């Protein structure tokens, strides 16, 4: 009987073993390509994030290649979808690094997925740049992990400062997504700063991503009569929240973070979104010539105004390319060193400098929903 068992188990692994030993596929004969991996959620409920980022990345790659590439080689991006799940992101990263032998990785938008990817990139010493993960823990994983966006402590600070000083309000209620650690983190940082600036959080309510009915939470919020409601969630729920808030008679403005950045927000929220504010990485109304030029080129390629995430994807790629140009060679350690030394890079989302913690030091913009579009309201600088 026991031998039967051993046979069985051995057979089971024998099935797996050839897979393990066989295809030890080496990189294809060195082509004149620099391979860059990208991991994004092009499917699933956050598909807009992944698709927008990828479009930005793609545009950047095309433009770089059009000007001759880097050190004589063209860039090629290999995109793998992670369906919005951290374990898929981790497997995708392992595959990109060990199978496709990429030189660097761009990803991911959501911090939970970046956190799954970063240890792997760090282990293999492949530079990883997140375009828009704002959780501080991501870059703490290792010195090969970078980001070109601000971090949540800063974003929470931005909206708290804006509320206290620009809107001059003292009482805010919070409605956060307990299923989303971005939302939880942002709420926490907002609360810290707002209290320091003399404000008061009158109520802290929560919901779960996927809910469609928020009337109970909003009814409770309504009873405390706040001056504004901070909703640091994703656009998928915020639209409905706004509608239901308005229909319950809550007239105060709503505030949020970069998770709002999607045209769907306006579609679902409709008129209820008017007058809401949120922090973002850039504004399409930025009059600077290079931003407008970027918007034009993007429109020509994709027939759509770029969202903040698309712009971040573009900037992440450009920063990477710039680092590769400045680097002594195309070895990953040299690229890493060049990335860490990035100073005052003129991206479309502002001047990007990478600090000691490998985070980007740059200002945030506050946008306001006016007449069905995102209008620029203010810029808040760090420090």
């Amino acid at each position, binding site marked *: 009987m026991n031998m039967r068992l051993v046979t069985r188990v051995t057979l089971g692994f024998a099935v797996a073993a050839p897979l*393990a030993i066989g295809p030890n596929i080496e990189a294809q004969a060195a082509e004149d390509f620099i391979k860059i991996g990208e991991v994004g959620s092009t499917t699933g409920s956050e598909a807009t994030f992944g698709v927008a980022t990828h479009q930005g990345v793609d545009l950047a790659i095309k433009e770089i290649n059009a000007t001759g590439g880097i050190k004589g080689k063209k860039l090629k991006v290999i995109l793998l979808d992670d369906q919005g799940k951290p374990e898929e992101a981790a497997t995708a990263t392992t595959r990109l690094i060990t199978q496709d032998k990429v030189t660097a990785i761009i990803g991911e938008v959501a911090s939970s997925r970046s956190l799954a990817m970063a240890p792997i990139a760090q282990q293999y010493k492949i530079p990883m740049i997140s375009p828009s993960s704002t959780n501080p823990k991501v870059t703490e994983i290792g010195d090969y992990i970078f980001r070109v966006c601000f971090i949540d402590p800063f974003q929470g600070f931005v909206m708290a400062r804006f509320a206290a000083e620009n809107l001059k309000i003292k009482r805010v209620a919070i409605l956060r997504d307990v299923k989303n650690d971005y939302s939880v983190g942002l709420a926490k940082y907002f609360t810290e700063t707002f209290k320091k600036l003399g404000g008061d959080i009158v109520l802290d309510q929560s919901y779960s991503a996927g809910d469609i009915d928020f009337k109970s939470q909003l009814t409770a919020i309504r009873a405390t009569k706040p001056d504004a409601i901070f909703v640091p969630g994703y656009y998928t729920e915020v639209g409905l929240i706004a509608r239901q808030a308005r229909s319950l008679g809550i007239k105060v403005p709503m505030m949020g973070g970069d998770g709002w950045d999607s045209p769907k927000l306006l579609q679902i929220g409709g008129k209820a979104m008017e007058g809401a504010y949120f922090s973002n990485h850039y504004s399409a109304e930025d009059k600077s010539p290079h931003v407008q030029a970027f918007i034009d080129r993007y429109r020509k390629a994709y027939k759509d105004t770029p969202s903040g995430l698309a712009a971040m994807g573009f900037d992440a790629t450009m920063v990477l390319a710039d680092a590769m140009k400045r680097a002594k060679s195309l070895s990953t350690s040299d690229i890493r060193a060049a990335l860490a030394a990035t100073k005052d890079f003129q991206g479309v989302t502002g001047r990007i400098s990478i600090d000691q913690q490998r985070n980007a030091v740059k200002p945030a913009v506050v946008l306001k929903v006016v007449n069905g579009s995102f209008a620029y309201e203010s810029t808040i600088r760090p420090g």
Partner: protein
Amino acid sequence: MEAVRRQTRMPKHRFLFSASTYQTLSWGLVLLAAFVVSPWIEQGINPYWFTIVIYCGINIILAVSLNLVNGFTGQFSIGHAGFMAVGAYVAAVVTMALGANPAWNEFVASNGISESAVLPIGLCLGGIAAAGAGYMVGMPSLRLRGDYLAIVTLGFGEIIRVIMMNTEAVGGASGLNNIPFLSNFGWVYSSVVLTVFCVWRMVHSSHGRTLLAVREDEIAGEAMGVNTTQAKVRAFAMGAFFAGVAGGLYAHQLRILTPQTFDFNRSFEVVIMVVLGGMGSISGSVVAAVLLTVLREALRVVQTWYEIDIRMVIYSLVLIILMLTRPNGLFGSREITDFFPASLRRKLAGGAEARGGVK
């Protein structure tokens, strides 16, 4: 009912403890070999394929443990991911807590034990916690009929997930990260062997007979004096234990845990492995688990073309077609050894014959 035909007498061994010295030795050798070979495998194989092997192992454990409940006991449990979650979180918390505990570190350093010894402790505790959850879930629900049981197990899976999400101690929505990477080939392989061994022994013992009775005709079983509820709960708890072990291995492979990882889709993936392999066939579960794990990776590139979760579309379609055309799955309730020529079978069963069990 082939299991009945195959044995002429009810085996009277106590569960798990009747191996002769020779057999114990051969087991020990196998496990030792796995550990010895382990670092060589890790260095020699492309890491990407290595993670696939690890995932194969984890899925084998999941499929075999679920087969015990769904296949051999005939209960439709679709909340297996919940037990996996319990095991994963407990194991991770244990290893992280021990790793940070100075007393433990001293103990390890002074006795020359490898650092990864913390893993089996985590896995055991995780498995026990999961078994506890299985017991708690099983006690009330196993009195229910098939359809209700399915929904209740689904519900428990969800409840466990929601609890994890709301418990700050395990990270809440952010989950746990920076779990030490301890799932090497040795541990995974030995866990797989252990699981298959235990389930096999369970099934081919008098306990197993009880489970089959529950599956075939519960009321007749009760009439014959079989305590069906207890049998079901036992199977449930055992299945949950191994799901917890698999969860622990998973946690130390992925190194990050979020409650969302253990949703209904994951339960469903294990269910389809069991169904595909054949409910009631351990070898079937092994083969199906490996097959589907590899398929998952192979479809990854296809996935990117379609922009949606094409894997779930394919899996569900396969399941429906399977149910309509070949509900027995690949192996039915046969084991892989049934395909060997009779002479080979007799030789392999040499040990058992000496004990007077099999033909």
